[in-house]
Each structure stands twice: as structure tokens, then as C-alpha cells.
């Protein structure tokens, strides 16, 4: 699953560690999601959307 996490982070000048702290997960987890190696659960996807003030579809897309 593709995502725009890197872009959204860059817009806010957040590092992976900054985002991890806000999500209450490890930096390794943020990196795995960002690089498409791990698809987050629905609750975590909603948490990401809320954090970036947008909806899930604006962050994740099912394009391969």
C-alpha cells in the first residue's frame, strides 16, 4: 500500500522519531509503515489521519 507519510512529515518538518513519539510507537514502526513494508491497522491509520488533520484516503492508497 502506498502512502504519503514522508511528504506529510516533511511539510511539518517532523523526523520519523517525532512522528513515532506522537503516535506512541517506535521509530522502527514508523519507518516500516512509511516504506510500505507494514500496513497499519485501522485504529493506527485513523490516529495518523487525525494527527495530520486529514482522512485516511489522503494518506494511504491501494496503488501498488
Amino acid at each position: 500500500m502506498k502512502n504519503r507519510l514522508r511528504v506529510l512529515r516533511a511539510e511539518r518538518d517532523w523526523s520519523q522519531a517525532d512522528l513515532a513519539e506522537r503516535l506512541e510507537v517506535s521509530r522502527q514502526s514508523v519507518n516500516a509503515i512509511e516504506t510500505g513494508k507494514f500496513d497499519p491497522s485501522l485504529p493506527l491509520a485513523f490516529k495518523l489521519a487525525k494527527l495530520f488533520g486529514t482522512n485516511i484516503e489522503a494518506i494511504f492508497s491501494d496503488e501498488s
Partner: protein
Amino acid sequence: MTCSTKSPAKRRYLRRFLVTMMLYVLFLVTAVLVFVHHHPTGPLAWLLALLPALAIIGQIAAFGMYLAEEKDEFQVVLGVQSMLWGIGGTLSVTVVWGFLEGFVNLQHMNLIWVYPIYCALSGIAFALLQLRYK
């Protein structure tokens, strides 16, 4: 702060792991010493023989508690994956050993080695997964 290497759940797990490991060493040394010097029989012998195993069961339970308490779902996935690799590897090693033991008289493997084999294989799997998702 959960973006540090160890989450609160992981720190609790490491603490429980250390406690169960210390209990294991204590129970094992006690059992060996008592069996060597006093040759116990009956219920005492059973109890002494079971104590180290109970510590190991405690260690397995500690990992189960970690998986239940960890809030970082990706870390749970890593834990479950390493556990599955450990279980699959242990089943493979022991079934191969069993057939070799039965057909070509390979030395008998005591069942107390099953858990150390599992720990070694799941540990290797966890290290490889860490490298993969670095």
C-alpha cells in the same frame, strides 16, 4: 516516551524475563545439588524436578504477557513472527532428529533441549527481522 528503543511493555518483559531466568538458575542448581547429595524420592523428587520447568513456563508466559501488553502493533508483529519462526524451526529440528534417532541410531536428544533450541532459533529470527526492518 515510546519512540525510544524499549517501550514500557518491553521493559516489563525484560524484567520478567530476568526474574524467571534467575529463578530457573536457582531452581536448577538447587535440584541438581539436592539430587546429587540427598537422592530424594517421592513427592519431593517430583517437586524439585518440576521447579526449573515452572520457571521456563513463567518465561513463556512473560512473552505472552508482552504480546498482550505491547501497544506498538508493529513490534507485536515482529514478536509473533520471530515466535513462529522459532516454533517452526524447533518442530523441524526435533522431528528430523527423531527420525534420525529412530532409523540411524543418532544419539538420543533429551526433551529439555527443546526450549533452548526454540530460544536460539526465535532469537536468530528476531535479529534477522530487526535487520530487515532497520
